[in-house]
């Protein structure tokens, strides 16, 4: 599927901002199953300094410095991206989850996703919650699909009850939140089992396939989870907010251990007073 992506974020400040520095993960990365035909990030006002980098896991980051006084800050991403995640093998052909855990911790490209991170650290209660789906000897894909569905069913999608510092442990307690919280809970579950869980930030197609309900988390930044299924299969993505196995409705921006590694837009400003924020996301298929 080929998508045209537009994501415009506008900050309006009540007071002038004297200096602003922003660190962004807003340019879509390359990955197996995703090809970025073109992507462009426009910043207004024009930054006095802009630095585009690719980090050690292949994410694009952009740092901008705005030294002139301004009352509005606009970041506009437009991109054309081709996505087609390969279908995973049938569940019964995937490895036992214990075998994955044993390999993952010693694989330098995977190990860090097995380890606790600030927002997705495993705790005893999380391990108990996860263990229900991960019975000894079970193949990993069936277990993952079940966990994905359980989180989708047992959580209430409720914006405003969490923020970007909310930990997986807290999410498990309140059983509510937004896509970011669904993802952190699932990642912490995987880590509690010694499995690698990766936080993926991106977008979801605005209009659902014909005849299906509108997805949660479209029209905004979205987040989901990837788990490593061994060297042969690689990483497979799950969207617990929508109980989906990610195929061709998701465009990936960046990935990390949790939200904090890949926060789409973080800034430190001097001045500004109160601000208001407008976000507009469109991810529409390009008809070919």
């Amino acid at each position, binding site marked *: 599927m080929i998508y045209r992506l537009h994501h415009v974020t506008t900050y309006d400040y009540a007071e002038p901002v004297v200096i602003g*520095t922003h*660190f962004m993960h807003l340019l879509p990365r390359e990955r197996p199953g995703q090809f970025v035909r073109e992507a462009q990030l426009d910043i207004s006002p024009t930054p006095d*300094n802009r630095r585009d980098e690719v980090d050690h896991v292949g994410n694009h980051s952009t740092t901008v410095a705005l030294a002139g006084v301004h009352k509005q800050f606009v970041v506009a991403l437009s991109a054309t991206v081709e996505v087609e995640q390969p279908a995973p093998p049938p569940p019964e052909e995937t490895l036992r989850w214990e075998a994955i855990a044993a390999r993952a911790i010693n694989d330098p490209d995977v190990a860090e996703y097995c380890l606790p991170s600030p927002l997705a650290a495993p705790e005893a209660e999380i391990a108990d919650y996860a263990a229900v789906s991960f019975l000894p000897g079970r193949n990993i894909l069936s277990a993952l699909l079940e966990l994905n569905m359980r989180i989708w069913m047992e959580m209430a999608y409720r914006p405003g009850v969490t*923020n970007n510092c909310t930990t997986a442990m807290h999410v498990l307690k309140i059983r509510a939140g937004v896509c970011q919280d669904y993802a952190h809970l699932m990642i912490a579950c995987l880590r509690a089992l010694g499995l690698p869980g990766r936080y993926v930030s991106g977008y979801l197609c605005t209009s659902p396939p014909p005849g299906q309900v509108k997805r949660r988390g479209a029209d905004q930044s979205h987040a989901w989870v990837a788990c490593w299924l061994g060297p042969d299969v690689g990483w497979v993505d799950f969207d617990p907010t929508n109980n989906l196995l990610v195929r061709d409705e998701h465009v990936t921006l960046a990935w990390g251990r949790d939200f*904090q590694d890949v926060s789409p*837009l973080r800034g430190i400003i*001097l001045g500004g007073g109160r601000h208001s924020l407008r*976000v507009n996301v469109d991810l529409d298929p390009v008809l070919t």
Partner: protein
Amino acid sequence: MHRPVSFDEMIDWQGRIRGPWVPVMTAVREIGPEELERRTAAMNRQMGLAAPFGTAPRHAFDPLPIPLTSSDFAVLEAGLRQRATLLNTALADLYGPQTLLRDGSLPPALVLGDPHFLRSLHTQAPLALPRLSLYAADLLRGPDGRFRLLRDHTGVIPGLGHVLSLRRAAAGTVPELFRSGGLRSLRPAREMLVDHLQRKAEGGLVAVLSAGAGAASDTQSLEDDALLARALGILLIEPSDLATRNGALHMKTLSGLLHVSTLIRCISGIDIDPLEQGGRPGSGIPGAFGAIRAGVLAMLNAPGSALMESTALRPYIENLFPTMLGEAPLLPLTAEGDTACASKAPFACGENFTAAPFCFRLFAWHDGETWQVLPGGLGLPLTPPDADTPALGIKDVWVLETEEPRLIAGAPPAEPPEHVKFLAAAHLPSRLADNLFWLGRSVERLEAACRLLMLALPRLESGTSLPRDIAERALIARCLAQARLLPSDIAGGSVSGRLLRQTLTRRRPVAGLLKEVGRLVNASSERLSPSMLATVRFALHQAAEALPNEETALPTMLSFAATFAGIAAENMSRDGGWLFLEMGRRLERGETLAETLAILLDAPVERLEPGMALSIELADSVLSYDLRHAGILAPGPVLTMLLADTSNPRSLAFQCTALRACLERLGADDDAESARLLLQDVVNLAGTATGLRAPLATIAAKLRQLSDHVHRHFFTLLPEAHTLEDEEVLEAAL
């Protein structure tokens, strides 16, 4: 279990004093135990002067060195070089291609899960300086006389400031120790290090990055940071002095933003960049990581280098020597229990000596081509301090030139003054200028309050109801209220002198003023020379001791103020720092004088006499007035002396002239012009004897305006920083 006998650094197996120790112990005998104890105390005082906060617990220091023979040092030097080379190579790999993880040399989880592994600095290209550019190792000498490695320091290097300063303090207090000569100087090494850093900085600023006095970090490391900056002759700065502009780091100074290219990092690398790592925007340096990755900022050491201090990784690192360097490690690691039989050296303990186990800390830096090892170090006592005995002191480790130290006559040449060429006046950090400005103000405020109280207290005591006394009391009460020493509701009415007095005693205004002076002395201490700081702190201490009774303490307070003024006049060079101290003082004195005179001279000519008398007394001008005018109070001469006489340091004209001179030197031409106009106003005013209140109040207001202006001009007030995160994006309703 049999425990081997600890190696004795001083006494050999036959019970003889080892060669290198002979001159040291000869000097000790010559000085005598009592004198040595006094000298030790003196040396500790001298080292303590570098501490930013005088009251905090500090390290103790021991003047007796630990001499190392050149052959012992050669072993250590080779070992440190080898270790530093390996650790830097490992860091470069772990923050780069990570082959050590891929080939299984190091377990990925131990590296990637370490809080000191900062993934933001995992880069493709190398940084401007090696990730490890400074290194220190703690070593023990075992019972067999061989050295073993206790721990590595690869992040912040503790003690570097102390090692570069300790010897100078010892040479000043116990010069007898240095008579035999033959020890290797640290000076060439120190100068090479500074030169290397300055060369790499290519004109950018090189500074020591410290947590700063405001941070809740331990004062011992702040003292070390301050000593390091002083020893290297470079600036000591805090994260709040820095700003990122256009992707590079700058220091906020009086002359604007200065590009900072190299920082000796004395704060943890974790949470150093709130922009990339999250955390409070007020702490740390937003954008530091980006600048490091782009190569426009170098830190020694790079954030994340403390990874190599991990004890979990240490056994794996040992195995890297053969694979990465093709050599066996020269310094074996300590085994469990080794610290219990570390070698011993005599430590001063009151008038006696006690043989105590210790470890050596040696330092190395990378000079762009190779690792250089500092020919000297610290001897750190391993005995845990307990309540009953005083803490054993840190020692200077000497490296001797030859095996047989020669006796040569005379003390070694004194070390030259520190590099001052890098400390230009215009580079004064805004924070320091601000502190010095308020220090000047607060000392003057203390002095003015004490003068007023000394004038007021005896007069409030006398209970007479003569009209003149009543008039005086009323004037004094108004002055006390104006100076905020009394609440205005009490001062305004016809309250008895006794009640006013009681209120003053209860409110203890002087204690608060003195505390503020102390705080600002600490905050400005890096711009006051050690001897100056010692004198000021001693005087502060005396003033604080006298405080319980504020009335009897007043002369001590004035003596403190006089000491401070004398020191500032005689010991400070007239650079940026002094100018701000001076401006603060002149503005405060001018404002207070104008406000007080507006009250005291607020009367018709025929009833001006009591106010004039008080004014003259308050301005400490009784004697000069008597000499010039035979004691007869007349408005004309009094006003001239208090307002227009530019030779009287307590006149308004003097303050305006001094302010103008400061502002001109700082290039603040508009403000200098304001000061000139004020001077004119003041001189003109001296010609009139009536209706002085309003014009004097206007002058006070104009001085306050000028103060605000100076403040805005020099201490750029930036709005508070806060974080902007896209939480709203994720929380947006469906």
